[in-house]
């Protein structure tokens, strides 16, 4: 049986723009695990991380880490964030504009350990940039610095709040790899907040799906997503641009495609409806992309990401 590091049962009312939602979570996280909280935005994933970090106070419940009690509403215990041995990577990175890369790491350490600082600089490829300030770093470099700074304190728990959401897909993949490495090298129990399925699969060994403030599903990513995600079908989300007899003109992923259907199928569809198209993945034609095609697709992905909020795909879980 794995050793349990974090035992947590908290309740907190979250005030959203529409309704007040109650976050009620009861979980146990094993030591050295890599756990993801998955769900749509606004369900309280970030709040949960902030509660663990001590930045947000839950209404009731308890948080136990190892043998220490970090929060207990019945005993009125609430340890300050400063005394919780954590590393927090914020969604906006929260880098300090007045400090250079190296100063960030030195500031984060309780005792100056230059050897550990240079190890972090090495691991996160920041060595050549150590005299730069955050505004002179690229998005990926800023993200690396944010993770390195969080690890500089040698935290027991590393909390990552959608750390890769602002990056393009290429950088994201690179950094996913680095986060796995960091997780292994620095032995921190890692909690990630994400709404990207690929990321969950790649990084975590356990996933909690949060919906309506509750944990709806939990398990390893394969099991949790298997029923809906891993099938022999390919599902495409699209939007109907035009209907002519039994021919649908659909925009999928910024590509306009014509689909022939039966009249039955389209009887209850109208223009501008968002639809899900399921295609059998058996016997597809597969070939490797040429370099130019690869570039084009990357460009397209960037566009899609930029427009993700109003893209039909965004509405899918």
């Amino acid at each position: 049986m794995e050793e349990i590091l974090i035992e947590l049962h908290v309740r907190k009312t979250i005030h959203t723009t529409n309704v007040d939602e109650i976050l009620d979570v009861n979980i146990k996280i094993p030591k050295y695990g890599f756990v993801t909280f998955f769900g749509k935005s606004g369900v309280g994933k970030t709040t949960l991380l902030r509660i663990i970090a001590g930045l947000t106070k839950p209404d009731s419940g308890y948080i136990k880490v190892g043998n220490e009690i970090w929060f207990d509403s019945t005993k009125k215990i609430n340890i300050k964030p400063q005394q919780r041995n954590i590393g927090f990577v914020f969604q906006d990175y929260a880098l300090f504009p007045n400090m250079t890369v190296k100063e960030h790491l030195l500031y984060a350490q309780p005792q100056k350990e230059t050897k550990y600082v240079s190890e972090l600089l090495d691991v996160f490829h920041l060595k050549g940039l150590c005299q730069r300030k955050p505004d002179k770093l690229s998005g990926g470099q800023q993200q690396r610095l944010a993770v390195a700074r969080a690890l500089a304190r040698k935290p027991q728990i590393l909390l990552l709040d959608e750390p890769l959401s602002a990056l393009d897909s290429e950088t994201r993949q690179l950094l996913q790899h680095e986060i796995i490495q960091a997780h292994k090298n620095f032995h921190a129990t890692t909690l990630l907040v994400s709404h990207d399925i690929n990321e969950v699969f790649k990084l975590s060994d356990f996933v909690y799906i949060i919906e309506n403030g509750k944990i709806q599903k939990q398990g390893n990513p394969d099991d949790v997503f298997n029923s809906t995600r891993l099938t022999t079908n390919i599902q495409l989300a699209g939007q109907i641009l035009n209907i002519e007899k039994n021919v649908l003109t659909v925009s999928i992923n910024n590509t306009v495609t014509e689909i022939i259907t039966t009249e039955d199928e389209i009887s209850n569809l109208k223009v501008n409806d968002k639809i899900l198209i399921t295609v059998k993945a058996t016997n597809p034609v597969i070939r490797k992309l040429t370099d130019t095609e690869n570039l084009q697709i990357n460009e397209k992905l960037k566009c899609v990401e930029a427009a993700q909020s109003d893209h039909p795909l965004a509405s899918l879980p």
Partner: protein
Amino acid sequence: MPLVLPPSVLGFYLLIAFSPNYWFGNFLDQYFDIRLAFSFTGILIGSIIFNLPFMVNSIQNGFSNLPVSLKDASFTLGKSRLTTVFRVLLPNMKPALLTGVCLTFAHTIGEFGVILMIGGNIPGKTRVAALAVYDEVQALNFDTANKYAVFLFLFSFIVLLFIYSVNREYLKWKKF
């Protein structure tokens, strides 16, 4: 409070407080041998009290313009409130601090009511440039008044120019 109080009212009460006939002024006089009424130290203290809100306002603005996550990040790195304020927050709001300092300074230079009340416009002692302009006009010495006025005008202009040029440098810093 000093923001909404008319300067002469504040000056009046400070003058009363500083006067050796009342307990505070008496206390200062007896134990420290300090007389604040009609002295340069007096108008200095009066100006500080009167102009403090400008500085406080600027600092408040500075704090509220910083992303909250900076403070949170510093806390999660195990740093106390005090360390966070001095190492992270204040260094990242230099434009606000500078604006505060310059505004307060310029405002103090031009202060009239409080100074007149506490200082009493004693030549060579508590007569400041702004008072001198008024005095010279009263005495119909428009030439001298003009000299003082031009000096004050240029001075304020230069201070303002300085704030904007330095702040522009800082604003080139990208915000996070």
